[in-house]
């Protein structure tokens, strides 16, 4: 018996229009090996995964062969594929909230595969589920098995997904961006569990991601895809330390220094002479009421931002980092008067945001960039109109058309962008449109809420460079909110760390990253996956 689980030979995937999306790739996966498949979005890595599962979306055709345990996943009849999926090969998806059925208990969902593939009795399956949940380090497994997906945290859901994928002891597990939606500390836990279980079950793992450090941490072999082809493959450490292909070099080069190795040289930043405060946040709290659980119940509240005091100085890039739910976005929204503090005071450029009558003038000075460049642009508006919107709204006099042309040029978009709709652009380009819109009223302050989190690594780098360049050119002050410490490390002068609404640490980037004063910050920094696998 051979140890080869999967053999892919000359796999070609074409769209209905005849575009080649995956262009003749071949590889083998052996039992107990962990292989990374990396590449930017659109490189064909997810389609490769779907081909292996025999789950290509309609309209796409595949050629070549994908032999899993001796059966061809491209030609086998659907009924046979159903028997293979979940039993011989299973998948862990990016977003466990949507990959799990919201109205089914976790235990039932895991048991479903066991009962279907292994014809287990209800009772046996229930016992097995508890074992599996224990294996993925979910505490109180009996209790959690009865929970619905929304009652678990993101990290727990993802571990439950892993338990589900491993339920039938598959020979191959495909994990498609399994940690992208998770906070960095949770990410580390989930990767550990995945690692451990793959080992225990003697399973082959195919880890698909655009996040190179995650691959470095988990896999021993890596394949790099670009434009439908495998452009480089080899031992992970070797490929990352010494990439031969230009595309791989670009990918590796786009990893921020902090994510390369733990012992990174931090370049000393130049001191700015002026220390003129432009945003001052004093004892600010924001409390949201929760819906009453019963008619007579007391109204409960959640404190999103808890007595924060900080000052952003003119011309600096001020980073705010924290995990999801730490209150960093709420704080950002208050800085642009989209939300008003319950207590405390925020003064931006001399304007107290509690004065609603001054909001229009305030918004000429402060503008915002959002995380999801798809969601932040109205799909029914043309790009020219989108960028001109703040000019019209804030009644800024002047030639709007000329200003739009100027801005499109400044963010390095093609001049004909004006007449096109947002969906005609890539994610990185859409974020440029959003940046151009934010710059339209010539603001002094730019608030960027996770501006690059939704973008590919190399696009992140380009976008960050553009932001840094525009900041210098227009003399902006920037508040940069991110959960990604390595990005913050790269672009910010000073940084504030938030945890559960509180400010736990604040200081210059060098101070905070080299000598974190609190355990929490230390944990955050330690949890960053690094390219050298440390």
């Amino acid at each position: 018996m051979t140890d080869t689980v999967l053999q892919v030979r000359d796999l070609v995937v074409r769209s209905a229009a005849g575009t080649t999306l995956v262009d003749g790739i071949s590889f083998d996966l052996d039992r107990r090996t962990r292989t990374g498949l990396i590449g930017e979005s659109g490189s064909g890595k997810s389609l490769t995964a779907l081909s292996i599962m025999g789950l290509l979306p309609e309209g796409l055709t595949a050629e070549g062969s994908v032999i899993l345990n001796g059966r061809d996943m491209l030609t086998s009849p659907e009924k046979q594929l159903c028997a293979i999926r979940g039993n011989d090969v299973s998948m862990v998806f990016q977003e466990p909230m949507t990959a799990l059925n919201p109205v089914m208990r976790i235990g039932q969902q895991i048991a479903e595969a066991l009962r279907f593939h292994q014809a287990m009795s209800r009772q046996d399956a229930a016992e097995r589920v508890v074992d599996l949940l224990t294996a993925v380090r979910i505490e109180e497994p009996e209790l959690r098995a009865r929970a619905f997906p929304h009652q678990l945290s993101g990290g727990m859901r993802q571990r439950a997904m892993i338990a589900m994928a491993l339920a039938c002891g598959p020979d191959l597990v495909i994990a498609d961006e399994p940690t992208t939606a998770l906070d960095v500390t949770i990410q580390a836990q989930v990767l550990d569990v995945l690692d451990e279980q793959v080992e225990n079950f003697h399973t082959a793992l195919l880890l698909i991601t655009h996040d190179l450090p995650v691959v470095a941490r988990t896999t021993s072999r890596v394949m790099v895809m670009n434009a439908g082809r495998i452009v480089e493959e080899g031992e992970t450490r070797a490929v990352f330390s010494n990439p031969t292909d230009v595309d791989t070099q670009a990918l590796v080069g786009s990893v921020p220094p902090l994510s390369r190795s733990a012992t990174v040289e931090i370049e000393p930043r130049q001191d700015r002479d002026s220390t003129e405060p432009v945003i001052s946040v004093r004892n600010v709290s924001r409390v949201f009421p929760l819906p009453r659980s019963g008619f007579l119940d007391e109204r409960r509240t959640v404190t999103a931002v808890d007595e924060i005091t900080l000052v952003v100085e003119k011309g600096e890039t001020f980073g705010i980092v924290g995990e999801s739910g730490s209150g960093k976005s709420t704080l950002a929204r208050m800085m642009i008067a989209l939300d008003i503090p319950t207590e405390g005071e925020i003064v931006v450029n001399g304007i107290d945001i509690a004065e609603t009558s001054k909001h229009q003038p305030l918004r000429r000075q402060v503008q915002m960039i959002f995380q999801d460049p798809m969601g932040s642009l109205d799909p029914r508006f043309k790009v020219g109109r989108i960028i001109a919107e703040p000019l019209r709204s804030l009644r800024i006099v002047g030639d709007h058309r000329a200003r739009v042309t100027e801005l499109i040029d400044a963010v390095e978009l093609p001049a004909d962008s004006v007449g096109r709709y947002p969906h005609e652009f890539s994610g990185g380009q859409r974020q440029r449109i959003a940046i151009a819109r934010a710059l339209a009223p010539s603001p002094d302050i730019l608030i960027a809420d996770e501006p690059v989190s939704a973008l590919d690594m190399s696009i992140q780098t380009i976008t960050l460079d553009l932001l840094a360049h525009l900041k210098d050119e227009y003399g902006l002050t920037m508040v940069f909110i991110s959960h990604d410490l390595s990005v913050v490390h790269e672009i910010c002068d000073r940084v504030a760390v938030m945890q559960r609404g509180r400010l736990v640490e604040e200081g210059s980037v060098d101070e905070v990253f080299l000598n974190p004063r609190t355990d929490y910050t230390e944990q955050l920094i330690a949890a960053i996956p690094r390219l050298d696998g440390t």
Partner: protein
Amino acid sequence: MTAPDAPIPVDLDRKRRRFRRANFIIGSVIVATVILTAILSAFWTPHDPAAISPSEVFLPAGSPGHLLGTDQFGRDVFSQIMVGSQNALFVGVLAVMIAIVIGIPLGGLAAARGGWIEDLLMRISDVIYAFPAVLTAILFVAAFQPGRTPAMVAIGIAYIPIVARVTRGAALSVFQLDFVTAARSYGRSQNFVFWRHVVPNILSVLIVQATVLFALAILAEAALSFLGLGTQPPTPSWGRSLRDAQTLISKAPWLAIWPGLAIAFTVMGFNLLGDGLRDALDPRLEVRNS
């Protein structure tokens, strides 16, 4: 051993979509036929629909010169049906216009403001919603006067909560999107955001809803006219033709069959169109095709 070009074994989705596409085409053809008939009948009908001819009473369908026969006064049934389409479209447009013009702003207000305004509006809509539209209309015409316009105003009012709820539901999800927050961040008012950003993005849902309500309004008019509370003579109405035919059903069944078919056909047409539009206007498909 692999066959090249092997079809990928998926898809139930495609069948469903083809089915929807057929619905859309059939629905459009029927609706177009009704509209064209209404326009044509304004200028030309085979006979004057009101012309009485004592020598030609109760002619069966297929009689020379009278395709669908004649009624107890010798009036041409085909011409009456043709002219009746004007009435059907009129009542549909009137009721749907009232429902939309009032329902959309109310739904938008509820979605944008939330809090007690939303609670109040939604509770009021629950109350109106609790009464069947036709019952509301009967109460309404009883209080005022029987007639087409009052009846359809009542139907329109009864449909306001339906439009308002659909608008609110769809708008709530659009209000969550970042481009709405972005518009607020550069100073656009809720009002502007709702009409310029939210409505265009929920238009497909509203169009589908309007089409379905159109069909319901035609049915409601037919029911009210059948009871004598809707369209009054001499305006030709399919519902009233049914009522007139009721006493003659054993003598001349075609007098009930033709207007009945006209109603069923038109209502089905609008429903199929609405069903087909649901898919045709689905923006997710737009993305997939681009």
